[in-house]
Each structure stands twice: as structure tokens, then as C-alpha cells.
């Protein structure tokens, strides 16, 4: 599958956000960009035992790295991705310079996560469709795509797969593991599963567990995919079909949850797409309003590059995430093992994972007397705000990373690029 990455969780955000540093068509590198990047693919032949009890016999992870791992190997940062992103976190793809990484505004020389001092790893998770082993990969046992036979995954499984990546690089302890949304859950997972291997845990726009409403949205998305006649029980590769209709509806639903009501009102309102004469309605079910046209377009585009089985797997992993589950619902107990210091950030208009969910994590950490910093950014862009260029948000993250650098005795920041330049 060709990774056609969007620069944010939704493309809508790109329309609201200040211009991303667009790659120059001639390949010139804008200031603060890590430049042209290519993924590497790292194979792990030791079977991975999964939470479900199933075993993934071997897997490959697609990875990009930026900056240089220092001699002490203490300046490494792992960036975990959310639902529809990948290892392409920053810079411009060497084979398509217009393809800018999904968190390029955050990661680069002189940016908040400063690659002049930190060695940053972007990793694509197993189950994905952007290069790491997933349902569309060939199952070595059958010689055919895994399809429906690909094992179910959890956030913990991703963390365990990433731990082997840390071993591969000889990184005993990450300076920080960081992610937004589902990526934040992986950062939390690291702090709980391998407390000794993470200095700082940076959790942005995330939640300690999905609410019934969150699961409800995921279920509607999954039903859309599964009930598409082209889905064929997940083995659509063999049938030469793609459940594009179902996947595109799933994406439309997800998309709505990434935006705030204000955002949608400002961008679309009740504007009609192409009104009939005298501004009349068409009185039918074709596109009547701008918002419908937009969502349909986003859904259809998504269905051309994203794998439906991956969408199912990832939404289910979101549903299953609940570190307090084995502790009678007590999140503080679940986090007791954590030795990392924490930074949490939430956004006021995020109704998918609202500030109150981040505060639950903060409260649990405070209860455990675990060092925690928490910023609640008053931003209008809903859940998607974590990918956008709010100067306060970036100042908090940058200030926090500069302290990590000072703690580790890394060099001082040489430049300020990106949002705060």
C-alpha cells in the first residue's frame, strides 16, 4: 500500500492551520525541517506473544529516525502515532517531497522536539498499513495476505513490539516517549509496562480509557466496514475487492469526532454546496450542504489509501485500552509502577478526549506523588488541536524538552524554528 500520509488526523485541520512548511517542489529544505527522509524496515524474528493469547510469529517495523543517537544513548525520543498516521513523523519523504511528516511542526532542528539534540524515532505499529506487518502483509504460513486471520492487537502489544525496537537501537532508556491521542496511550503503556526504560512520558490529548460514547462511535465505524458487501469477512484481498464504501463512512464518522462544533460551524455552517435556483434546496439525498461534500470527499480519499482491516484493529485496540482494568478500575494503582516524569496536555474544545479525561490521569499521578506537569490549552480546534500550531502548546512542549535536555546534560538549544520562531 502506498503511504499517502495526511499531515494531520483530519485534513480539515490543514485548512484551519497556519500553512505547514510546504516542501519546495525543487526539494529545497525549509528551515526547521529534518529534510528528506526514507524509512527503514527492521525485522524481528522472535515470536511476539500478544494480549489475546495469539502469537505473531515474526514482524517487521517501518521506522524513520531523525537526529543522532549520542554515545551515552540517552537522548532518544520515541514518537507513537495515532489512528491513521505512521512512522513518517517529520521531514519530507525522499520519494515524494510533498509528503511532509504528520508531526513536522513539532519535530525538527530547533523545533519543540529539537533534533539537533534529540534522536527521534518514528515507528509504524504492527497492524498498520503503512509498512509494518499488518493484515495486508503476507502471512508466511499461507503465502497469502493475513486478512481476517491477523491477530487482534492491544496498546500493550504495540509497546512490547516497540521495546524490541529500543533493543535493536541499543537504547536502554528513552529520554521520552511521546504521543497524542492513541499515541499518548502508548506512552502511558510504556510508563506502566517498562517503567525503567522511559525517563519522561508525554501524553497529549489522550485518555486513560474510552468512554461508552467513544466505543459507540468506534462500533458504528466498524459496522460500516463489516457490513460492506465487499468486506468478505476481512478477506477482501483474495476477492480483489476493497470495502471502500464502509471504510469511507467509518472515516466520515471519525472525522466528525476530531473537530469541534465551533470548528464545523465556522468552516461549513449550513452553507449549501450548489443550491438550486434562487438558493433553493434540491429536495433529495445528494449532497446538499458543504459539510456533506467535505465529509464524503475525505471518506473517499481515505478509503483509497487506508486498509479496512487496519481500521478495525486499531479502533478495537482503542476500545480495549484500560490500564486500570487489572486494578479494580483504580488508575492510580495501575500507574503506581511508573517511575517516569509526566507531561500531559489537553485542549479545551476536544470532546473526543476532553480535558476531564486528562485530569483523571493527572489526579492519579498526583495521588501517587509522581512528578506531573499539566497544561490545558484553550484552543478551538477540538481533538485535532494536538496536531496544530498553537504557540502556547508548542511553548509548553518546547520548555519541557529543554528541561529534559538540561537534566540529561545535553547541549543547549542552538535555534528556535517552527511555530515559535
Amino acid at each position, binding site marked *: 500500500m502506498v503511504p499517502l500520509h495526511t499531515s494531520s488526523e483530519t485534513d480539515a485541520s490543514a485548512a*484551519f*492551520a*497556519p500553512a505547514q512548511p510546504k516542501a519546495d517542489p525543487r526539494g529545497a529544505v525549509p528551515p526547521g525541517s529534518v529534510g528528506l527522509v526514507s524509512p527503514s524496515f527492521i525485522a524481528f524474528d522472535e515470536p511476539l506473544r500478544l494480549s489475546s493469547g495469539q502469537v505473531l510469529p515474526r514482524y517487521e517495523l517501518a521506522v524513520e529516525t531523525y537526529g543522532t543517537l549520542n554515545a551515552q544513548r540517552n537522548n532518544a525520543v520515541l514518537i507513537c502515532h495515532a489512528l491513521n498516521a505512521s512512522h513518517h513523523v517529520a521531514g519530507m519523504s525522499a520519494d515524494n517531497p510533498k509528503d511532509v511528516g504528520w508531526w513536522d511542526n513539532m519535530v525538527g532542528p530547533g523545533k519543540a522536539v529539537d533534533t539537533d539534540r534529540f534522536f527521534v524515532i518514528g515507528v509504524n505499529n504492527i497492524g498498520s498499513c503503512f509498512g509494518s506487518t499488518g493484515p495486508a502483509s503476507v502471512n508466511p504460513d499461507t503465502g497469502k495476505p493475513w486478512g481476517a486471520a491477523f491477530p487482534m492487537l492491544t496498546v500493550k502489544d504495540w509497546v512490547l513490539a516497540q521495546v524490541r525496537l529500543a533493543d535493536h537501537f541499543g537504547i536502554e532508556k528513552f529520554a521520552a516517549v511521546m504521543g497524542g491521542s492513541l499515541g499518548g496511550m502508548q506512552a502511558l503503556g510504556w510508563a506502566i509496562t517498562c517503567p525503567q526504560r522511559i525517563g519522561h512520558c508525554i501524553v497529549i490529548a489522550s485518555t486513560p480509557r474510552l468512554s461508552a460514547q467513544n466505543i459507540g462511535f468506534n462500533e458504528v465505524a466498524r459496522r460500516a466496514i463489516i457490513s460492506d458487501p465487499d468486506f468478505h469477512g476481512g478477506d477482501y484481498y483474495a476477492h480483489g475487492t476493497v470495502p471502500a464504501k464502509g471504510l469511507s463512512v467509518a472515516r466520515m464518522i471519525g472525522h466528525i469526532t476530531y473537530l469541534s462544533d465551533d470548528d464545523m460551524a465556522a468552516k461549513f455552517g449550513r452553507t449549501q454546496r450548489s443550491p438550486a435556483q434562487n438558493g433553493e434546496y434540491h429536495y433529495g439525498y445528494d449532497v446538499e450542504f458543504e459539510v456533506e461534500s467535505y465529509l464524503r470527499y475525505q471518506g473517499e480519499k481515505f478509503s483509497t489509501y487506508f486498509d479496512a482491516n487496519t481500521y478495525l484493529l486499531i479502533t478495537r485496540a482503542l476500545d480495549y485500552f484500560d490500564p486500570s482494568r487489572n486494578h479494580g478500575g483504580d488508575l492510580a494503582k495501575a500507574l503506581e509502577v511508573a517511575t517516569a516524569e509526566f507531561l500531559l496536555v489537553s485542549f479545551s474544545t476536544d470532546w473526543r478526549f476532553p480535558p476531564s479525561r486528562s*485530569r483523571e490521569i*493527572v*489526579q492519579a499521578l*498526583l*495521588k501517587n*506523588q509522581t*512528578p*506531573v*506537569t*499539566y*497544561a*490545558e*490549552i*484553550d*484552543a*478551538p*480546534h477540538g481533538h485535532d488541536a494536538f496536531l*496544530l500550531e*498553537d*504557540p*502556547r502548546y508548542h*511553548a*509548553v512542549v518546547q*520548555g*519541557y524538552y*529543554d*528541561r529534559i535536555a*538540561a*537534566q540529561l546534560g545535553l547541549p543547549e538549544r542552538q535555534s528556535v524554528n517552527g511555530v*515559535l520562531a
Partner: protein
Amino acid sequence: MSETRRLSARDAVRRADEASNRATRQSLRPDLARIASWIDTNSRVLDLGCGDGTLLAHLRDKKSVDGAGVEFDDARVISAVRRGVRVVQQNLEEGLALFDDQQFDSVVLSQTLQAMHHTEHILREMARVARYGIVSFPNFGYWPHGFSILRGRMPVTGEMPYQWYDTPNIHLCTLRDFEALASKLGLRITDLATFNGGKEVKFLAGWRSTLAVYRFESPMAKP
């Protein structure tokens, strides 16, 4: 992002930059120095309205204090993060629900009490989360204030530089007023320091001081 919103976001970062530059030149204010003197080495401290983290950074560096701050203002949160002070961004009026009972040795509320809507509530909350509470506030009993009122005008002075119609100070009190409330809430006052223009005042403090700093023990404190 709307233009005004973006400007205010930029402005918060600019104010944080200015605060960071100032911080490197400044020594601790006398009232904060006194507060620091009441805090034990290696203790746990919560600073409510911690601003740019000046006090907590001082306590961390000089007394190995394990501190946390609460601050609402974006620019101050950024400044505190830059100093490596642990800060939780929250409006104090929402209370201290994030914090457990008796989680800290001391809790500080510096020059904020007079601006809070729920005065009694925050004092009770302070007594809930820590053994010792420290509050500072402008002394309304400062004698020129009385003089000003005799002349028919609300006082406007150094610690309270606001006109009556634009002041954030909605709950002003004198030293005795505060002591009466503390008594009502079961807070046992252990220390008092009073200041005027950055200098400590010991004689006739109720009239001559502009700023009062009290330390009290929580009724929940275990003997």
C-alpha cells in the same frame, strides 16, 4: 485559529519570554523569602497561583523541596515549565479536587486570597490537602486606607493599585478579620509576618503594614 486568538496565544508566549528574562535577574521578594523560611527542607509543598514558579524553583534549589504548583495563566504556566517547576494548569476557583487529603506538608496561597470568590472554600481546601497553610494578602487595615475613606474615596495604594471599579480584589480584610475567619474554620495560626514596601513591620503591624503573611496549621493535622 482566529486572528485574535492567535495573537493572544502569541502574546502569552511573549509574556512568558519576558518573565523568563526577568527571572534570571531577580532575587526572591521579602515576603516570599519569609514564606520559604517557614518551609522545611525535603518537605512537600503545593503553591497555589504559583505564577512563573519563582518560589517553587527557590525551594527546590535551596531546600530540596518536592513541589507542585497550580496556575491558570498560560504565560505563567509556560514560564514555570521552563524553570522545570511542576505545574498543573487549573482555575483555583474550581477547588483542589485533583489533590488528596493531607498530600502536602505545606500549601501556599500568595497574594491571591483577596481575589477569590470562594474565600472560605479555598481555605478549607488548603487545610484539607496540607498540614500547614500559608496565605498572604494586602492588609486593608493599613492606616492610609482609613484616611482615604475618611476623605470619601476608596484607597488606592502600592499593594492595591486598583480603582474600585476595576479591582480584582473582591474580598479585602484586615489582620483581625482574617484571624476571626481562621478561628471560625479551626485553623490554628502559628506565625505572622507583616511587610510594608518590602520591609518587615513589627510595631503596630495592624495599621502600618500593607501585606500580611500568615501560617496556620490544619485541624486535620495529626499531632
